[in-house]
């Protein structure tokens, strides 16, 4: 294996066996195991070894292998983050500090991509409870809301239509929708009593990116990712959410590297439950996932612009063809 392959080297194997070898090499299956399988399938051991060697010194295989190795490595990195998080005990509950200065909020939680409950940050909450699901979905005919799919707002439709289709149990319909608070005249009274939490969000309601969120009752809805940091709180009563850490991405996408998916580690994603009561807010970090636990539909308010160097940080879905090539090999 210490010399370069001949220009015209070809494998003695049939295409389906080459495909099998390639897939297993990319998965990191040990070479001895592959040879054993080939021998069991009736290939002479020497031929099996030689064919594997041909595959391994093929530059195209080596290139594809590097891409796969980097993929598994990135997943391995997320797995390290999970282990550290779990070992610290942080997976047991979302912190709910009695006192939380804005600088602590940013340095301990926001910049570190960790959730936190902010207590008592909303002032003058006495009239918030008059904003009910019934009032918004029943009386605000023309209110346009954006159903949230995969964490991204989709084409707006009227709140009445969205609520009707949701209660009819339409499959695939987002159970969360949101609308900007300041664009509608009939939401003004709500906007006028909402004071964005000082020091945490950008100054002023307009700058704070305030939005109204509607949570329908879905049948075990899948979690959705926060594409940006969200400071989210119920407008009335007590409501609960499940939060799933951002580093669980590979688990949520249904894949983990073969090395990570041993029985001990092929566990479910970590999941933190958080109960919130007006006027509490939870900071859902960008990249984290959240899932509704509601038995009743309800309303939330969010702030989506922060008093940080950048108002928010977005997690974009990469576009196909966006991949940047690695540097061209040196002469």
């Amino acid at each position, binding site marked *: 294996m210490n010399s370069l392959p001949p220009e015209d080297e070809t494998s003695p194997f049939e295409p389906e066996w080459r495909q099998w070898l390639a897939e297993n090499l990319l998965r990191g299956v040990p070479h001895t195991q592959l040879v054993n399988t080939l021998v069991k399938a009736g290939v002479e051991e020497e031929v099996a070894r030689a064919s594997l060697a041909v595959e391994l010194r*093929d*530059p195209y295989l080596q*290139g594809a292998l590097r891409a796969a190795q980097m993929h598994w490595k990135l997943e391995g990195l997320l797995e390290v983050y999970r282990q550290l998080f779990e070992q610290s005990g942080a997976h047991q509950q979302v912190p709910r500090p009695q006192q939380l200065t804005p600088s602590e909020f940013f340095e301990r939680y926001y910049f570190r991509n960790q959730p936190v409950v902010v207590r008592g940050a909303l002032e003058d909450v006495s009239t918030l409870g008059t904003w009910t699901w019934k009032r918004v979905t029943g009386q605000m005919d023309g209110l346009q809301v954006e159903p949230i799919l995969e964490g991204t707002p989709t084409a707006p439709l009227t709140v009445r239509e969205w609520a009707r289709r949701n209660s009819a149990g339409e499959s695939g319909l987002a159970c969360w929708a949101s609308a900007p608070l300041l664009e509608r005249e009939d939401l003004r009274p709500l906007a006028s009593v909402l004071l964005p939490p000082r020091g945490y969000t950008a100054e002023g309601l307009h700058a704070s990116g305030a939005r109204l969120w509607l949570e329908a009752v879905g049948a075990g809805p899948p979690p959705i990712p926060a594409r940006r940091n969200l400071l989210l709180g119920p407008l009335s009563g007590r409501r609960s959410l499940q939060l799933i850490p951002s580093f669980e991405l590979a688990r949520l996408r249904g894949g983990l590297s073969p090395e990570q998916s041993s029985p001990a580690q092929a566990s479910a994603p970590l999941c933190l439950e958080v109960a919130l009561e007006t006027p509490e807010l939870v900071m859902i970090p960008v990249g984290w996932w959240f899932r509704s636990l509601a038995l009743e539909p309800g309303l939330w308010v969010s702030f989506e612009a922060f008093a*940080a160097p950048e108002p928010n940080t977005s997690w974009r879905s990469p576009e196909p063809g966006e991949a940047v090539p690695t*540097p*061209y*090999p040196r002469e």
Partner: protein
Amino acid sequence: MAMSPREFQRRRWIAENLARGVSAEQLLALLLQFDVDPFQARAELEAAAAHPAVRAARPLAPRRQEIEALLDVYSSLHQQSPEAGRIDRRVRLSPAEFFEQYYFRHRPVVMEGLLSDWPASNHWSPESFAERFGDVEVELMAGRETITDPDFHGDLLVRTLRMREFVARLRAARQTNDFYLVARNHLLQNPALSALRDEIRAPAGFVIPDLREPDSTHLWFGPAGTLSNLHHDEINVLFCQVYGRKRFWLIPSFEIQRLYNDRGFYSAVDILSSQPERYPDFQRANVASVIVGPGDALLIPVGWWHAVRSLEVSISVTFVRFALPQRNHWLKPFWIGPPPSQDISRRKAAPHELAPPGG
């Protein structure tokens, strides 16, 4: 006829990038830019696209890009924080604070005074090593300056020398990266040097107390000027500086895509000459630099990229077994490309003999 190294590397590059989701058109444009014959370029692109391994790897690309975008988010948040480009220095940090604020949070820290009860702090120097263990043969890496990536090809560079001669060379050299006694030499496991192990102390509450456990403790000893270029470790490391000073550069693990990790756990970037035109993303990496001196202990979190340069003759001890139920966190899999012994894409320079003393 055997493929030339240039052809081999080009084909590997084409396959890697197709598998990473780069379009064939973009690769073709680059190949033409590098004066590859258009007919040859198209043929190789087609062969790569049809290759079973490339076809099997390509569906992973969107998932990998999604993770990369998430790591970019971590990096952008870090960049906005006061921690960016900075390493905390703490005095009298308790083990509980160390684990809660740094180890579990995956952040480096320099702790001062952690080695204050080490007899080594007063007794260790190159001269005392020469005097006490002059006849003991030690393994070291030599000829580091004869190849471009000595740490990658470390196995080729192993030489044996008596401690006395090693110290003489080290004093004579003044400043060199040519020879270095690194962790893989397992010096502290050498029975003839067991006295050294008795002169260090496992920092109580931080690492496990039994220093005799294999691979738990390592010694590093080298001249001024040694450079371990950018790489990461697959476990957390507590780096304790006993003698002399070293400069560290540290970059968060989540900036891996800016480090051009082209082989093993090594970056293609040279910390002393980072070539912005070839490695533009490295310019966006959040590099923090810190000097550790005698008595300082640095936590190098698993996966964090680092480069280390000794500013003076330096003796260091590292620990990797932490005082936790789960003793360390492993990044796996972490190796990119074939192991060095099978890396057929590069011609390896035969290591030269050690330069004579005073040379």
